[in-house]
């Protein structure tokens, strides 16, 4: 979309031009300025929780919206990130002094209840904070790489990829619930109080965590924009529209897909880690198939072709979810179902699509008022995308069926 590169390449083009940066600035002001001012700390903590889903939605824009790869297993990566953080916090909460009443002091309480007498090996690295951060980022990336490598190198795409990732999410939930002694089972890992001796439950701590989460989200959005406007991003768009031509041009399509899937998984994992920090626990219900497909709807509502739109989508759908399900729990399920159908049938480009359809002309007029230069390619550029969603999926059936 850096169509003005002929005019002059500026650093802004690396992020999609001035317009996109302005939109990110607006969302930054909303998250870091407006919300903390209007909401009390209880609400703000909830908003912070919604924002953690925006990481996942932004990742889905990269791999689903632009790459045409629908992953129904983003909950896996969200969970890996969340559980990584939860394991670190849990180990800290179960120091030998705190757990002196247990038959084996020094291990998490649920392990003691399940007659475990020593810490399992895979819990050991989570004693160290830097190692935890490293693992939160690398374990999901590794999993995504393995899944992506196995599938994309064999040109499995589209529908098959969706079904298999969904199955993996389901397997992971069963595994977590079944291995109660190692994972905390269906209750998850609860009772998380401090981060390196610093209580995460005070109002002040929750403000700090909210801002950290907001800043991390803005950085992720910038990173996403950077990826989309890099050479990989260009290839991604080319590949989604005409996969065969990109392949015939000598590019390995699989590598591009693997890259974008790994990027999406890391985004989700960061979101998961912030989720644990702000909510104070992690449980398998945020990992499974239902949670994973809900993450897709956050992205679809916001706009599958817009990173920034997806962030709004995640926030708004969650806001609607908690306000509706507080008062009318039954209605919410129906509303969610209707949302799935509506977003597919009526507005496949989501909120971002609606905004650019209706606000686009207005902006054009405003731009005409303020500067006399022809506003041409900037506004025109996103237009062709409107026709794409149908075409893209058409391509992905083709690629799924090549395997027969």
């Amino acid at each position, binding site marked *: 979309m850096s169509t003005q590169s002929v005019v002059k390449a500026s650093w802004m083009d690396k992020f999609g031009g001035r317009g996109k940066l302005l939109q990110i600035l607006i969302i930054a002001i909303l998250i870091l300025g407006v919300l903390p001012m209007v909401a009390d700390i209880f609400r703000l903590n909830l908003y912070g929780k919604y924002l953690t889903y925006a990481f996942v939605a932004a990742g889905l824009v990269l791999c*689903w919206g632009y790459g045409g790869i*629908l992953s*129904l297993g983003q909950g896996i990566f969200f969970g890996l990130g969340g559980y990584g953080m939860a394991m670190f916090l849990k180990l800290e909460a179960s120091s030998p002094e705190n757990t002196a009443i247990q038959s084996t002091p020094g291990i998490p309480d649920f392990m003691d209840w399940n007659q475990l007498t020593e810490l399992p090996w895979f819990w050991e690295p989570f004693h160290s904070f830097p190692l935890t951060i490293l693992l939160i980022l690398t374990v999901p990336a590794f999993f995504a790489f393995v*899944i992506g490598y*196995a*599938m994309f190198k*064999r040109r*499995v795409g*589209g*529908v*098959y990829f*969706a*079904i*298999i990732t*969904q*199955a*993996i999410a*389901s*397997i992971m939930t*069963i*595994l977590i*619930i*079944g*291995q109660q002694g190692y994972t905390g089972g269906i209750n998850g890992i609860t009772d998380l109080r401090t981060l390196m001796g610093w209580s995460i439950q005070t109002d002040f701590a929750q403000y700090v965590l909210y801002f950290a989460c907001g800043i991390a989200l803005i950085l992720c959005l910038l990173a996403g924009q950077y990826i989309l406007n890099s050479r990989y991003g260009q290839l991604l768009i080319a590949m989604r529209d005409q996969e065969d031509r990109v392949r015939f041009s000598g590019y390995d399509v699989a590598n591009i897909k693997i890259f974008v899937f790994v990027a999406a998984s890391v985004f989700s994992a960061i979101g998961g880690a912030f989720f644990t920090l702000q909510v104070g626990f992690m449980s398998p219900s945020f990992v499974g*198939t239902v949670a994973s*497909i809900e993450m*897709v*709807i956050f992205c*679809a509502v916001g706009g599958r072709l817009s990173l920034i739109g997806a962030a709004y989508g995640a926030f708004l759908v969650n806001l609607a979810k908690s306000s509706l399900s507080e008062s009318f729990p*039954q209605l919410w*399920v*129906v509303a*969610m*179902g*209707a*949302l*799935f*159908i509506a*977003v*597919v*049938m009526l507005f*496949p480009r989501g909120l971002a699509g609606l905004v650019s359809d209706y606000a686009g002309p207005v902006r054009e007029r405003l731009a005409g008022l303020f500067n006399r230069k022809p506003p041409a390619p900037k506004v025109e550029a996103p237009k062709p995308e409107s026709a794409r*969603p*149908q075409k893209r*999926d*058409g391509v*992905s*059936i083709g690629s*799924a*069926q090549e*395997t*027969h």
Partner: protein
Amino acid sequence: MGGYTGEELTAIFLMQGFSGLSLFCVFLLMALGLAIIFGQMGVINMAHGEFLTLGAYITYLTSYLASDVWPFLLDYYFPVAIILAFLGTFILGYLVERFLIRFLYNRPLDTLLATWGLGLILQQIFRSVFGPREKSVVMPDWLMGSYQATDMVDIPLNGLMVVGITILLTIGVFILLYKSRWGIKVRATTQNRTMANAAGINTDRVDRLTFALGCGIAGVAGAAFTTIASTGPTTGSLYIVDTFLVVVFGGAASLLGTVASAFGIAQAQSILSFFLSGSMAKVITLMTVVIILMFRPQGLFASKVRR
């Protein structure tokens, strides 16, 4: 596997084999409808489990009518219930194709999301109408009791009934797809829509009937399901992920593959669950399937047709 004698192991395999058989029937009954809708048409119907649930609830209603209103009909309600379950789900499937699926044929991933939404709505309707608790049908006398094969082994009659329905339905679907004129039209449409149109096949009508029939089969599956388990609003959706894996593992377009993979997965899972916990048995079975699929994405029985 130390600690078991050979004789005991045989007995274990036999007993677990029988319990695997009922899981096999559930998988296959659900997978048959999907094999048509997904295997032939390439449509992902995430609401398929809800169609099964609908069939089960229709059977429940019929049994309720038969036991409370016209008790003298109790012995005969089951065949009627199967027909009603088929009709009910067939009609709903027809409508869903007409108003939803039709617009999404070239967007399979979007179909997946839309049908998931449909499934959520149906689940909530079931919950409001029938309540969140599980419902069991009143069984006619001739389905109670069991058949004593040897003094060790005894097979419940309702289990036999489900196996019978599964076999009949599988044969029926096979004949429909591979031996009937309608089957030729379906396969022609999926292989090359334009040519099928040119050959005078009304492909829109074929699509509608195919989808409705797949849903109708799910309804019959639901009716059979009521004889071995009770029905709740989320009964069908419990199996949806596994069933899709069954169909993909078998090779999407191959009916024989679907049967083989349903059998393999169900038996592996139930035999393993004797030695390990139930959840680990499921994890290991499904994980193996996923890993095999990563090396052989076309499934067990790949169709030779180039699409």
